[in-house]
């Protein structure tokens, strides 16, 4: 499918609005200045996207991701993903412990990723609900600890059944004094991509 520059620009601008809001909420959540930068919003072949994700993450250490289904007038899938060591740092920040206190994956690390996925996906839903007057409800986040490629494959499973191409909004998280490798992906499911394009230009 060929996508016009106008469509790509509109999607990128909406994505930037979402990410700005997410940046503020995330800073408040972990009580540190965080900037979330939109790296790209693009349409690409699913296999290319998966290969890119696998290259970004160190597959030896493992990753953690929270997948949320946003259902309603528009269906989206949301993924927050990070590597294991960053998830442990985020847990310490959330619990106001000195970073380095959490040394292994435990229930607190799992629920930290779950809660970040929950809050960030709610921002996405709220922005679309408020700005476009559509209904959207987030599911309980599903947390996966696995290789990044496996987590991403699970995230795109519904889309991969339908077509070869996916719209991906990709972002990176930067903490003031620590480099954090986190990604946030938003992907329309089914006909929602067309609905989003219609809403953007209506």
């Amino acid at each position, binding site marked *: 499918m060929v996508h016009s520059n106008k469509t790509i620009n509109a999607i990128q601008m909406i994505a930037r609005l979402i990410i700005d809001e997410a940046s503020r909420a*995330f800073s408040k*959540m972990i009580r540190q200045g965080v900037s979330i930068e939109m790296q790209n919003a693009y349409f690409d072949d699913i296999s290319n996207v998966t290969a890119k994700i696998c290259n970004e993450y160190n597959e030896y250490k493992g990753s953690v991701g929270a997948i949320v289904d946003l259902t309603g007038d528009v269906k989206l899938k949301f993924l927050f993903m990070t590597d294991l060591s960053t998830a442990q740092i985020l847990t310490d920040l959330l*619990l106001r412990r000195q970073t380095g206190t959490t040394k292994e994956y435990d229930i607190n690390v799992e*629920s930290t990723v*779950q809660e970040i996925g*929950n*809050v960030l996906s*709610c*921002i996405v839903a709220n922005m679309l609900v408020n700005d476009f007057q559509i209904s959207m409800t987030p599911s*309980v986040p599903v947390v996966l600890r696995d290789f990044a490629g496996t987590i991403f494959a699970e995230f795109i499973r519904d889309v991969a059944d339908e077509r070869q191409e996916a719209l991906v909004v990709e972002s990176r998280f930067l903490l003031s004094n620590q480099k954090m490798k986190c990604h946030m992906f938003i992907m329309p499911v089914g006909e929602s991509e067309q609905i989003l394009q219609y809403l953007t230009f209506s």
Partner: protein
Amino acid sequence: MGKKIMVVDDAAVIRLMLKDILESHQFEVVGECSNGQDAIEKFKALKPDIVTMDIIMPNMDGVQALEEILKFDKNAKVIMVTALDQREFLMKAIRLGAADFIVKPFEDARVIAAIQRVARQI
């Protein structure tokens, strides 16, 4: 006088955060639950003064649990905890009789202010 609080949230880290905040302000956390169904059972058993109740949870969500708890005790004080103004759920909870609400991500002061405000009604 510290009130007895029960914390309901499916995220263990949020239960731990709320417990730390509440206990540092001399409130007693008498129970924790990770879903709405457990919350109803534990409310009946523990009879807490105040419940903090997450909205989106597996098995039974916080709004359904609120409804059941209020059927058991119409004077129950339940504070809804919601991620970034999920207004549809929140309005339903308010209509059912929720005592107050806290929006995640929250600050300690907001949590304590809500608990103290509700505690004064008891």
